[in-house]
């Protein structure tokens, strides 16, 4: 089985310049003085999301429309 590549650490490169570019793509206008705080928050979000990097998601479907039901016998 191929080794799963981790994206860990890439988000650390998010800085004010990256935020300005992403904001432009997204159609958002951020005052310059807000960019450092937004960059920090986005890094924090990526850091938390990186906890999912090690999870084997092979074959799993995204829960686009969430259904809480479990199948009989306990399988989801």
């Amino acid at each position, binding site marked *: 089985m191929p080794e799963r590549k981790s994206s860990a650490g890439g988000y650390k490169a998010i800085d004010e310049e990256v935020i300005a570019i*992403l904001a432009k793509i997204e159609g958002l206008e951020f005052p310059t003085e807000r960019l450092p705080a937004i960059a920090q*928050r986005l890094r924090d979000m990526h850091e938390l999301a990186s*906890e999912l990097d090690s999870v084997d998601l092979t074959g*799993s479907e*995204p829960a686009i429309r969430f*259904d*809480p*039901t479990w199948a009989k016998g*306990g*399988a989801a």
Partner: protein
Amino acid sequence: MTEPCDLTLIEAALQLESARLSPVELIESALARLEQTESQLHAFVSVDAEGARSAARIAEAEIARGDYRGPLHGIPIAVKDIFDLKGVPTRCNSRVREHYPPAVEDAVSVAKTRSAGAIFIGKTVTQEFAAGVISDPARNPWDPTRIPGGSSGGSGASVASGSSLAAFGSDTGGSIRNPASINGIVGLKPTYGTVSKRGVFPLSWSLDTVGPLGKRVADVAHFYNAISGIDPLDTSSGTTRPTDATAEIGQDIRGLRIGVMRPFFFDRLQPDVASAVERAFSVFSELGALVIETPWDSAKTARAASFVINRVEAAEVHRDTIRSTPDLFAEELRLRLESNSLFPATGYLRALKARSVAKASMARLFADFNLDAVLAPASAGTAALANDLNTTYPDGSEEPVNLAYTRLTMPFNATGQPVVAVPCGFDRLGLPIGLQVVGRPFGEDRICRIAHAYEQAAGWIERKPALISG
């Protein structure tokens, strides 16, 4: 002497039905308690005293002529200010909706309680758009220098202090269970999709749930029965008929199999929380349940997935207003929405996949151990000071309350399971501690049975907040 507003919902209902108590007396008692406590608790954004009095007189006449509608008839309840209540603006504690007009109709869940005869005292303080756990300016009746948790913080403070006998809350990452725990009351986060969300302002549509806070497990079970049901016009509503949450209440729990998920849920707790929860496990054993160690290896995954989904969906909910009126958001939510607007779609989809993995893992855990429920602490710490919004640990480290109060609850928003949060003790400062009883999807009946048995045996429910016990 017990004031009428200090009765539980079910105690009051029994007295109302048998005409030993009048709805007018009960409403006057709740309004008097509100008058007594509100200057310290700031739990309400609006109060409709005259409307409540008028409704009470009508309820009194209805009951007198034999038209008793059931356990919510004549009961004073409070409504979190993200729910539409006809004739009252839904402001979500945000300047964004400062000039929003009054709601033209009730949210579906509110309308159901109105039909059941409930009387609305007022609307309660929430964290801005239900996105957080502080609920400023509301305070905690056990110590008004402390926060009531959130985002259903005003609802929690109101029920704990007696200005309402039950209240509406919503739970996306723990916002019913956390204020229940922090205020020493009971909260029920239902199975995802069993209570309509129409007329409730969304935080994160695939995680949001609507449910009750009350003084006792039986109170929230009856409240849940009144508001649950399939709603074809709510896209998140399921097709499975919700359970009667009261169906098993009063049955003993001998022989039931209850799991304890020690790793993750015990990794970082205030010591008084850890010891209270450990003592609770002993009570379950003494009641005849089989308490089993059941480590859940997907807890961290579930929490991370829940966090990402929550943040990204909230950014999408507020997509227009964060562009048009960013200055009207409080700084904390503004930063959250701005930054998460830039989070990649692939990260969101990974979180949705991880959610499927976590849900399957929990289903296997229940199947492998043949479980009826699992237990976990509701919050890593007790109520924080309003001027120091951190949870402090014995090693001197601190954790912001928005993490400490949701770390142990968010996993079950990812899995969509029902959870009852029930008081399980007090810390050395006399602040309440809560326990989560987590069930199978649509297993509200079983978790209410288990939590009720514990509640009655453990005895914590006899204590009252200092603010009202004199």
